[in-house]
Every structure is written in structure tokens, then in C-alpha cells.
């Protein structure tokens, strides 16, 4: 692979890669995302390769280990091109039949196609499956066509055309202007305007050495969208970060990610290596005079490391404790140099904005929240997976129309939005829209994970779960966070053990108030999110525990035992 020296050369290579591929040539794409691999996709891939060899079809049929399309519930997923026939829960035993019936015989195997869990309707093609159909998959729609380990696949799907456009036609200022005009906002949930952040950093007088960081820490205990996206299409992030670094004037870029996800780390590292080999990273990128290095930085684990100052401290080799923010990161960030830190999904949107233009991006969504949002859906939901929806969709549509609702005959109880510092909402609030302002006003945050709880859930137990999590993660430096969480947990544990007092709720509210006002960092300030939202929306559950010594979800052991003793 030769180093590319100019935008024209890159365009030529992109064209070559695309024309070498015959769109009508049969290709069996098997999801090799970590969910599918855990469900046996590795064996399925091997079986396809062996069977193709056995039937003498090697010259006519390709196989591809592709990136996750998001339907993890039905793993392993297989899509057969060019017909786009989608098979779900495929096993190695199904493989010979798929080859002879579908690839050679062009017939659909009814047994293997998707059946809608609610209507029983069957759908044979990728674009007919309601789960996909109801999404707006601008960022993840091509995942099944791309082997995350192949830069050529990414190019054939249109990848690096945005970088090309930027290097050929755009000044740094123009890139920032475009991102500002698109109104791209921070996907960590912050909603902070990315263009504004980039511009402050570009203009910072602090230093000429500037850094760019992608936050893929995703410490939320119940979310996996950011990591899955990086795993599925790492070049999308690399491209977004190269463009951003050019606009900001950064010379080094880092992807910050946990090492508990070896496949994510491996794919990201490989993507960087491939981009270096092609000359898309390194010195004098595409002959523009712009230099950039990129590196994956492994975090040492811990929720608080996702917070900007803790993250930077940890990258500097220090203890990852948050600091008071006296300066903006865009002036004094990593190693005290001007730094832009954006969430992984923020970076993912950059190539799209450049390719389609700010106006078409800003045409999607609500007045103040533009574009799409990628969530992981999990908990008690039929279609667990990764979904991409336009801003402005209601949470009800996401959970019921795309997610398929609750398994079994169980009733919906609560939706957790925004992770451990977000909150829980009941059914009547599901008509809230995916929109930064609307979710914030409801005491929620736009985190990457949506987790559904059904009627068998005890709300008090879920709050204890989250406060325990935060208490373990708290650095312990400030008293309101350290002691506040401990006392809240003591009171809540008493409540679940049948020792609750009526004054407890008031006391919990008081502690939360102090914590919000006086904690040092955002972790402590936000720690009461789950508690306050549930005291507001599920107060009756607390009261049932306290007054009736009853656990409505049937979870709290002590209360179930007392109940059976009294009724016996």
C-alpha cells in the first residue's frame, strides 16, 4: 500500500477500491461484533468458508466478517448480498443449506428470517425488518458492508471522502463553520456545541501544541453503544478525528478506551495503523502540510475517568481524580495544552456533516437537537441492541416500535435514561422526545444507554444498585459525596429490610440537596439523580416498603419473608 500524497491520489484510490468491487457479486456478510461472536459467529464464519471451498464456489462467492448492525438480540446475524437477505440466529448447521438454497438457488429460507416478536410478521430483507426500518441509520447503516479490519471496505462504502473534501477545498475555519452551522452538540449528553469548543481551542493563545481526544470511556454500567460503534466502524471515528484535528490545529490525537473490550481496542489500533500506512495520518497529510499522530490510550478503569479532568489526569499518568475547573480544557487541558475532548459519537458525526453539508444535517431533529442519536437498548426489552434514531423521536417509539417492548406478558415499569447520574421515568413520560433540553428539563441526561425495567423490578433496589455503584466509584475526596452516599445507602437498605421510617424520605431529599450543592465534581453533584427521579415518579414504591412493608416488585428478600410469615 503506497502513501497517498494528495487529495487527487486519495480520490483515485477510493475509485479503484470501489470499481474493483462488483455490486452484483454474491457476498455473505456475517456480523463479527462481540455480541454475535459470543453467540457463535466465529464458528458460523468458519463454516461458511469451509462450505464455499467444499462446493467449489471460492471464485464466485465472498465472505465478510462485518461490523455490528445492532440487532444483537438475534445474534448471529447474516446478510446475503446482493439480495440483502437477512438471516438471524444462524448456526453452523444452517450453513450448507444457506449456500445451496439461497446463494446458489436464490431462494429464501423461511425458517431463518426475522419474525416480528409482536405481529408475527416475517421479513426477509434487511430493509424490511421493522427494527431497522424505523431507525434512521445514517452512521451505522453500512456496518454490515464493512469489515472493521479493512480500510478498503470503509473507502468502498464512501469512507474518507469527507477528509478528501476537507483537504482539497476547505480551510480550517470553514470546517469549524460547517460544524457550527450543523449545530453538532456533545453526544456525551453534555449537549455542548462542538463547533464552539473547537473554535475556542483553535484560537487559544495558550500554546501551539494542541491535542484532540475521543472519549470512548463509557463508564455507565449499563451502556455499550460508544464501544460497539468504535468496534464496528473504527475508521469513521479516525476520519472524524483527523478532520477535527485539522480544524483545531492539533498535532496529536488520542482515543481513550477501556481495555476490558479487547476487540474494540484491537480494531481501533488496526484502523490507526492502516490510516498511517496510507498516509492519512503522519507527516504532511495528503500534501497539506498538516501533521497528525493518533494513538489508542488505555484507561485504567473507573467510572469517574470519563470526566474530562480525571481523564486527562489519568492520561498524564496521574491518579484519575477530578479537579476543580479553573481553566477551560480548550486553554489548558492535557499536559496543560489547549485540548478538545469530545465523545465518540460526536466525532462519528463529523464526516457526515462534511459530506452532506450542515444544512441537510440540521434539517434532521428538533429545533435545538440536530442529527441522530445512537443508543444501546437493554434490560427487559425484546430487541436488545444498538439503535440509531433521529433526534425528536419519542422514547415510546424507541422502546416499543424499535425495541419491540417488554418480553413475556410483563408490564413496563420504568425506563432508565442517562446512566447512573440520570434518572428513571414511568410510562406516562415515555412521550418525551430525544432532545437535549427536553430530557434535561425532566431531570434526565442524554447518555448512551436506555435500560428498561418491567414490573418485576424493585425501584428501591435499582436505586441502591446505582448508589452502590457510585459509592464505589467516588474518589472520596469530598464529604458530601463520600458520606452522603454512605448515609443514603444506609437509609435505603433499611427501607428494603422493612426497617424504614416515614421521615426517611424527607431525610433522603435533604441529603440529596446538600450533595447537589456542595459536592466537588459532577459525580457527586449528579449522584442523587436516580434517587430524586424515583422519589418523584415512584414515591408509592418507597411508601409501600415503608408503610406496608411490601415490595411491589417482589425483589426485597426481607419483605417477602415477612409477608409469607404473616400470611402463614
Amino acid at each position: 500500500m503506497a502513501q497517498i500524497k494528495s487529495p487527487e491520489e486519495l480520490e483515485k484510490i477510493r475509485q479503484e477500491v470501489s470499481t474493483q468491487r462488483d455490486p452484483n457479486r454474491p457476498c455473505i456478510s456475517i456480523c463479527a461484533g462481540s455480541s454475535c461472536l459470543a453467540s457463535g459467529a466465529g464458528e458460523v464464519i468458519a463454516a461458511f468458508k469451509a462450505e464455499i471451498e467444499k462446493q467449489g464456489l471460492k471464485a464466485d462467492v465472498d465472505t465478510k466478517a462485518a461490523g455490528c448492525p445492532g440487532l444483537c438480540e438475534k445474534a448471529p446475524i447474516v446478510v446475503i448480498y446482493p439480495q440483502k437477505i437477512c438471516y438471524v440466529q444462524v448456526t453452523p448447521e444452517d450453513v450448507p443449506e444457506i449456500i445451496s438454497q439461497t446463494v446458489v438457488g436464490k431462494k429464501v429460507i423461511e425458517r431463518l428470517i426475522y419474525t416480528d416478536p409482536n405481529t408475527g410478521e416475517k421479513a426477509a430483507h434487511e430493509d424490511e425488518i421493522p427494527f431497522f426500518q424505523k431507525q434512521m441509520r445514517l452512521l451505522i447503516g453500512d456496518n454490515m458492508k464493512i469489515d472493521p479490519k479493512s480500510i478498503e471496505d470503509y473507502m468502498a462504502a464512501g469512507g474518507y471522502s469527507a477528509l478528501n473534501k476537507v483537504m482539497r477545498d476547505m480551510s480550517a475555519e470553514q470546517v469549524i463553520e460547517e460544524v457550527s452551522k450543523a449545530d453538532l452538540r456533545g453526544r456525551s449528553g453534555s449537549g455542548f456545541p462542538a463547533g464552539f469548543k473547537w473554535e475556542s481551542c483553535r484560537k487559544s493563545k495558550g500554546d501551539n501544541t494542541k491535542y484532540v481526544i475521543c472519549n470512548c470511556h463509557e463508564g455507565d454500567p449499563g451502556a455499550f453503544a460508544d464501544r460497539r460503534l468504535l468496534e464496528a466502524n473504527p475508521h469513521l471515528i479516525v476520519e472524524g478525528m483527523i478532520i477535527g484535528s485539522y480544524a483545531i490545529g492539533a498535532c496529536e490525537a488520542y482515543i481513550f478506551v477501556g481495555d476490558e473490550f479487547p476487540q474494540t481496542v484491537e480494531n481501533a489500533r488496526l484502523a490507526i495503523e492502516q490510516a498511517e500506512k496510507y498516509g492519512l495520518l503522519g507527516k504532511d497529510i495528503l500534501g497539506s502540510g498538516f501533521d497528525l499522530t493518533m494513538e489508542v490510550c488505555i484507561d485504567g478503569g473507573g467510572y469517574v475517568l470519563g470526566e474530562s479532568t480525571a481523564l486527562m489526569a489519568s492520561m498524564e499518568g496521574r491518579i484519575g481524580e477530578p479537579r476543580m475547573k479553573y481553566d477551560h480544557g480548550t486553554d489548558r487541558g492535557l499536559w496543560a495544552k489547549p485540548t478538545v475532548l469530545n465523545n465518540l459519537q460526536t466525532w462519528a458525526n463529523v464526516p457526515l456533516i462534511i459530506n452532506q453539508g450542515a444544512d441537510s444535517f440540521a434539517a434532521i431533529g428538533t429545533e435545538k437537537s440536530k442529527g441522530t442519536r445512537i443508543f444501546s437498548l437493554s434490560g427487559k426489552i425484546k430487541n436488545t441492541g444498538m439503535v440509531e434514531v433521529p433526534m425528536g423521536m419519542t422514547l415510546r417509539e424507541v422502546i416499543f416500535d424499535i425495541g419491540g417492548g417488554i418480553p413475556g406478558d410483563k408490564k413496563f415499569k420504568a425506563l432508565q435514561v442517562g446512566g447512573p447520574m440520570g434518572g428513571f421515568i414511568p410510562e406516562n413520560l415515555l412521550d418525551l422526545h430525544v432532545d437535549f433540553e427536553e430530557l434535561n428539563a425532566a431531570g434526565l441526561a442524554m447518555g448512551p444507554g436506555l435500560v428498561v425495567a418491567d414490573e418485576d423490578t424493585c425501584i428501591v433496589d435499582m436505586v441502591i444498585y446505582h448508589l452502590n455503584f457510585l459509592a464505589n466509584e467516588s474518589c472520596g475526596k469530598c464529604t458530601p459525596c463520600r458520606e452522603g452516599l454512605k448515609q443514603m445507602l444506609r437509609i435505603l437498605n433499611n427501607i428494603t429490610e422493612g426497617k424504614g421510617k416515614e421521615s426517611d424520605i424527607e431525610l433522603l431529599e435533604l441529603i440529596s440537596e446538600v450533595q447537589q450543592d456542595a459536592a466537588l465534581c459532577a459525580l457527586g453533584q449528579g449522584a442523587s439523580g436516580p434517587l430524586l427521579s424515583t422519589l418523584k415518579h415512584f414515591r408509592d414504591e418507597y411508601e409501600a416498603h415503608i408503610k406496608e412493608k411490601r415490595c411491589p416488585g417482589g425483589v426485597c428478600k426481607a419483605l417477602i419473608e415477612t409477608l409469607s410469615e404473616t400470611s402463614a
Partner: protein
Amino acid sequence: MDDSKIDLIIDKHHAEESALIKVLLDIQDEYGWLSPKALKRVSEKLEVPLARVQQTATFYKAFSLAPKGRHTIHVCNGTSCHLRGAQRVLDKVQELTGIKPGETDPDLKFRLEAVNCLGQCALGPVMEVDGKIYGKMSPKKAAEPLKKYE
């Protein structure tokens, strides 16, 4: 323990103070844990006070100050797995192995950790042993996979 690799790892990172976490991560990858001897060596070669090396090693979740055991069990206690009964699975695994999260058994066979979302929520509750995923766990089903490991 053969600790010749410690120096190699430190040199790979040019014995730079700012590489402290990277050095510790690599040593941990190589040996499975951070021995007192390793911490001392890192402190000397990076010219960082031993107290700071220890502070770092205890702050980050990725580091273990006790030998890791031949096999590592991760029981996912992420939000989704928790909702699907992960706590009962974790209780059962504790009973089966006789250790709590963060501990290694005396025979150095298993180390147990309770972890956050493994991205396998569709299969929850999930248990992972040495990187292999065991899905749809229940207290009853937890014993079987563990028998495979020696």
C-alpha cells in the same frame, strides 16, 4: 517469578514518569498482577516515589495487587444484567468458588470480579471466564461451565 521482563517493559516506555500507568498495565498483562517487587522496580527506574506507584496501583480498577489465579471469572453486574438477576448468579458463583469479587482462591485457580456492562446484554445475565462468554445464566446454570476449568 521471572522478573526479567519488568525492565524490558520499563525500557520500552523509555522509563518516562508520565508512562507510569502504561508501564503498570503492561506488567500486569505479562504477570497477571503487580507484585511488591515489581512496584519497587518501577519506582526506582521511573524515579517516582514508591508511595505514588502504590497510590496509582490501588486507584485504578485494572490493577491487581494479588496473584490473579489461572482463570478469571467476570460476573456482569451491569444495569441490564442486574435487572435480569445477576446478583443471584454472583451469589451462587461466590458460593461455588468460596471467594468474593476482587479475591483469588488459595489454590490460585479462580479470581472473581463483578464487572459493568460487557456489551452482551442480549445474553444477560452474563458470566465470562477467561474471555469466553456464558450467557443466559441462572444460579442453577452457573456450576456447569466452571467445571471445565482446572
